[in-house]
């Protein structure tokens, strides 16, 4: 099957391309980006992308596909469909599945289900410790062999510093990145909301920034000692951005990401006890939000993730503190990112880079770019459509988005995975 997508604005930060041109696909791969068809190319299908953007399929370093088991809604089959509806074609799924992805068998199960779904590229992240218990190391090398692109503790950071030190040292020789969420359980102290004016007024148990930064400081020291390639997941505090900037300056092999909602929302949004705003780490202050945006802008924060967590309705139909944290966010990642660009917080190429080239580099994967020879994973984005989100109409099985009623300019029109159309938007 040969396809040409014509006259679109091709934005591919990995190749420094931002130009109106054509993309030629052949046998599921990118053949060329050019104004003229390569010699001998006859298209079986022509797609006109005039006034539209052509982007590499997005790479998401953190998204729950609720498969196998787990407390989340949906399955690999349903959630990969939601991903491509949001222009995301490569997904890293954390190991907090049920059973935990701490063995080759579970990794292979995830891969098999993803192949059957054939909608997006699913890259499992293996557990750093067995059952994520933070005590015994997992068979990290076997997990890597099975195809895990990284190792992590999902949302259950290792609290014991010695165990973490051993885990990092062991993994350092295996050439696989470790993803670390920084959270000191004791300092978190069963907290629910960022410690600030809103938690003070509403009497919500507080999570101080030190719950993140104290853990980050410890982890940075251990990362330096072990020499492991470390990626810090979902940082949320301005101080964390400074600490990672300093670590990078010292030449440590560290990268980090932020969840999209941390760049859009703040603690102010939690004022009405609306459980849809409950996430972990919590929405923080306006200052933190500004610092995180600045971190993306300056490249200290490498990647932006969806932190997609599709939940059953009942998980949110509870008082704030009893509700399950998380947002269903595959289908709003790109729209919110473009909103940040429209509101002049980020420039377009930095924004796209943070969801394509950079995350792909972190997991050393050939996605996130329209380079010739790469899998033809891309999305056509219409930057002029004005639409309003109704979470009930989302493709994801999790309807837990706080962005219902938000108006967006720009929407994914079509997504290709391995050269096949896997999503087409039907505007209502």
């Amino acid at each position, binding site marked *: 099957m040969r396809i040409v997508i014509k006259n679109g604005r091709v934005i591919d930060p990995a190749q420094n391309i931002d130009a109106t041109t054509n993309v030629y696909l052949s046998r599921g791969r990118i053949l060329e980006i050019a104004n003229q068809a390569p010699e001998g190319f006859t298209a079986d299908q022509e797609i006109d992308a005039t006034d539209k953007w052509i982007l590499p399929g997005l790479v998401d370093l953190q998204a729950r596909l609720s498969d196998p088991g787990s407390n989340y809604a949906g399955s690999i089959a349903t959630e990969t469909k939601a991903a491509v509806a949001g222009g995301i074609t490569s997904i890293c799924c954390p190991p907090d599945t049920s059973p935990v992805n701490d063995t080759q068998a579970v990794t292979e199960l995830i891969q098999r289900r993803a192949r059957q779904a054939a909608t997006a590229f699913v890259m499992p992240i293996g557990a750093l410790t067995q059952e994520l218990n933070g005590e015994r190391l997992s068979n990290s090398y076997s997990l890597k062999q099975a195809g895990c692109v990284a190792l992590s503790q999902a949302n259950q950071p290792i609290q014991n510093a010695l165990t973490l030190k051993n885990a990092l040292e062991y993994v350092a020789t295996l050439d696989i990145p470790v993803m670390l969420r920084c959270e000191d359980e004791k300092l978190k102290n069963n907290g629910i909301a960022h410690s600030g004016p809103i938690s003070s007024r*509403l009497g919500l148990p507080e999570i101080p920034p030190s719950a993140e930064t104290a853990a980050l400081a410890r982890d940075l020291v251990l990362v330096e000692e072990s020499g492991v390639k470390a990626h810090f997941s979902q940082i949320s505090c301005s101080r964390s951005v400074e600490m990672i900037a300093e670590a990078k300056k010292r030449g440590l092999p560290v990268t980090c990401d932020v969840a999209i909602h941390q760049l859009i929302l703040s603690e102010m949004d939690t004022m009405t006890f609306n459980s849809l705003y409950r996430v972990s780490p919590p929405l923080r202050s306006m200052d933190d939000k500004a610092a995180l945006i600045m971190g993306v802008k300056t490249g200290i924060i490498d990647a932006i993730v969806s932190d997609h967590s599709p939940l059953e309705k009942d998980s949110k139909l509870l008082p704030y503190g009893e509700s399950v944290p998380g947002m269903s966010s595959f289908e709003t990642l790109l729209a919110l990112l473009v909103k940040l660009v429209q509101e002049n917080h980020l420039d377009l190429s930095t924004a796209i880079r943070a969801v394509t080239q950079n995350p792909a580099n972190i997991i050393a994967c050939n996605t996130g770019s329209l380079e010739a020879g790469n899998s033809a994973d891309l999305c056509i984005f219409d930057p002029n459509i004005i639409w309003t989100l109704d979470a009930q109409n989302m493709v994801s099985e999790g309807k837990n988005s706080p962005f219902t009623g938000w108006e967006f300019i720009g929407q994914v029109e079509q997504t290709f995975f391995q050269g096949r159309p896997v999503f087409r938007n039907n505007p209502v």
Partner: protein
Amino acid sequence: MSGRLVARNIQLNELGKLEHFLTLEGLKAHHLTEILDTAESFINPQTNEIRKLPLLRGKSIMNLFFEPSTRTRTTFEIAEKRLSADIESLDIQTSATKKGESLLDTLWNLQAMQADMFVIRHAESGAAHFFAKHVAPHVHVMNAGDGQHAHPTQAMLDMYTIRKHKGDIFDLKVAIVGDVLHSRVVRSQIQALSILEAREIRVIGPKTLMPSDPAAMGVHVYHNIEEGLEGVDVIIMVRLQNERMKSALIPSEKEFFKLYGLTEERLALAKPDAIVMHPGPINRGVEIDSAVADGSQSVILEQVTYGIAVRMAVMAILISNAAQLAQHKAEQESQLQIEGLDSEQDETEKMEDEK
């Protein structure tokens, strides 16, 4: 951010009157004054006795206590009986609801049993808001304490007590001493005092018992009780709970008393006619000296009586506001019908004219 509407205060109805009583935040002085005035009308000024009234006859109130309580629950029950309501009290263990039916199923089941009002106490901040969002339109929710968030009836009875002794709350300096961080009562007291425009609200206690941003609550923080009590009109002592020692927030009761206990010497720093309040139960020798608790400036026991009248007042207001809203809607509807008839008439006349 763009594209969002400011949420309506869910405890007010279309006429801006109380429909639920969840928190004092967002209420106006007239809402609070109405509660205080109504409560006053329930108390016989000569005997301090509370009248029995038929205002809630035929109404059914369910007291749902997801967290154990004896005193608050008892005063609510007495208040409900004095208003002639039919009442039912249920102790619901959160763990039991977690096992089987969801919290909302429990609520909807009870609602199906013809409840007109729920009085709810729950360990989670925001629980009363959650219930208010999900009850049927005709059902009222009263917050009897949610987590560390609010305990508005307790705060209102404290305002009643202050007004009783000091006249107007406007222009008073009030000091609140103790555990501000964990106290829903204090949060509600601070809101009530701000709404009623107290001249200054001070909170006094160690940093470990203060929230991260007390200034957001509109108070001045003191870590030294002598400085904090200087020249105040009202002193509110807050009960110190034993768990605080276990979680390493303070070393011991003894040391807390040394630093923050209300003694006669310290009381002397306040205005000579200052009153001393405590929402109870008192820990003698921990936050307050017996001599002060039983002294002439203490008004601690009065507070209990007023608690009944204030709770009666809130319930009566919620029910009467609902009746008023129904009447308002009926009037609007009949007005529309009359207008509809008029316009029909106009049209027939017009048609006739055209003929």
